[in-house]
C-alpha cells in the first residue's frame, strides 16, 4: 500500500503490522497520539509505518472480532497529529487502516463487514468518505463498498 507524501506528491510504500509489546511499551502520548493506546492491549491493535522507516508509527487501529455476527468492529483509529489537517505531511493513513479492517473482514469470511460507532456530527462524513451506511446506531460497510475501500487504498500493486 502507498501513502501520499504531500510535499513531493509522490506515493511512498507503507505497511501495516500488529502492534507488539515493545511498541506498547514505547508508545507515549507525546509522540503524536492523543488517546491512551495502552488501554487497547486486549483488542487487536495494528500500526502503519513507512517501509523506509519502520521505527516511526504513523497511525494506529484498534479492532474487535465479533465472530458470532461475522463482523469486525473498529474501536479506535488515530493518525499522528502531524498527519491530520491542512498541514499534514502524509495522506491516506486512515484510509489504509480502514481498508485493512475491510480486508481482514473478507479474509475471515465476514463478507467484508466492518462496523464503527461514529460521533453523530461525523456520520455523513464517514458515509461520503468511505462508503459506510447507517445500520441502527452504528455505521457499517460490506461487500462491494468494502471492496472499493480496499481497491482505493491498498490497490493490487
Amino acid at each position: 500500500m502507498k501513502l501520499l507524501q504531500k510535499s513531493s506528491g509522490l506515493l511512498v510504500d507503507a505497511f501495516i503490522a500488529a502492534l507488539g509489546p515493545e511498541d506498547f511499551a514505547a508508545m507515549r502520548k507525546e509522540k503524536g497520539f492523543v488517546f491512551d493506546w495502552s488501554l487497547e492491549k486486549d483488542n487487536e491493535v495494528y500500526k502503519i509505518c513507512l517501509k523506509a522507516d519502520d521505527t516511526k508509527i504513523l497511525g494506529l487501529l484498534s479492532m474487535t472480532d465479533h465472530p458470532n455476527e461475522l463482523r469486525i468492529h473498529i474501536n479506535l483509529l488515530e493518525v499522528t497529529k502531524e498527519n491530520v489537517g491542512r498541514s499534514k505531511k502524509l495522506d491516506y493513513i486512515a484510509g489504509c487502516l480502514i481498508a485493512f479492517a475491510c480486508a481482514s473482514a473478507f479474509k475471515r469470511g465476514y463478507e467484508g463487514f466492518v462496523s464503527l460507532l461514529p460521533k453523530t456530527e461525523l456520520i455523513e462524513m464517514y458515509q461520503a468518505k468511505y462508503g459506510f451506511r447507517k445500520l441502527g446506531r452504528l455505521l457499517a460497510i460490506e461487500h462491494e463498498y468494502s471492496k472499493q475501500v480496499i481497491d482505493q487504498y491498498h490497490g493490487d500493486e
Partner: protein
Amino acid sequence: MNIQSKSLTNTTEMSKQDTYTELKKQFSDQELVEGYVFPSDLDEQEKNGIEAEFKALRIKALKETTEEQRLLSGLMRMKLLIKDYLEIGVFDRDFSFAKQLGDYIKLLGRSQNVVAAELDFESSHLSRLITEQRRPTQEVIYRLEKHCGHVIPAIYWWKLYALQLEDDIKSNEALRSAEWEKVKNNLKFRA
C-alpha cells in the same frame, strides 16, 4: 491476544468527549474523519442496548445477502489470501496455480465443463490444468482475469504459477540431472 468482544473503554486524563471537543476546535469534520475513529463514550447499559439492536440488524442483513454478493465476497477472500501468500513468497502447495484454479471453480458453483466452455477451452484442457498435467500460458491467465470479473488480476494468477516454478527449478534434482546429461561441450572454468 484476546480479540473477543473487548469493546473499547479508552480513557485518558481528559475525557473522551473533551478530547473530541479539543480536536474539533483544531480540525474540520472532513479532517477529523481522515484522522480518527473516536472511541465510544457510552456507559455499559447504553452500549449493550446498541449492540443488541445491531446484532439483530446484522443477522437480518446476512439473511438478505444475494448470491452475487456471496460470490464477490468469496472471490475477495481468495484474492486477499493469495496476496498475503505472494508477499510471503514461499511456495505452499495449497496455493499452487492448479489448487487455486480448482478452488475458483468450486467457488463459482459451476461444473468444470461449463467453466471450460466459458473460457473457450476444451474441457480436457481445463482438467489438465487442474491436475498439473499442463502449465498455464499467458493466454490462460488473461482469460481467467476476465472470467473472475477482474477481481483477481492476471498477475496474481501468473505469480501463483511462477512461485511454484521457481520452487521446482530450485529443487527438481531429477530433471536437472536428466537435462545435464543432454548437454555437450559445456564451458568449464577453474574454480
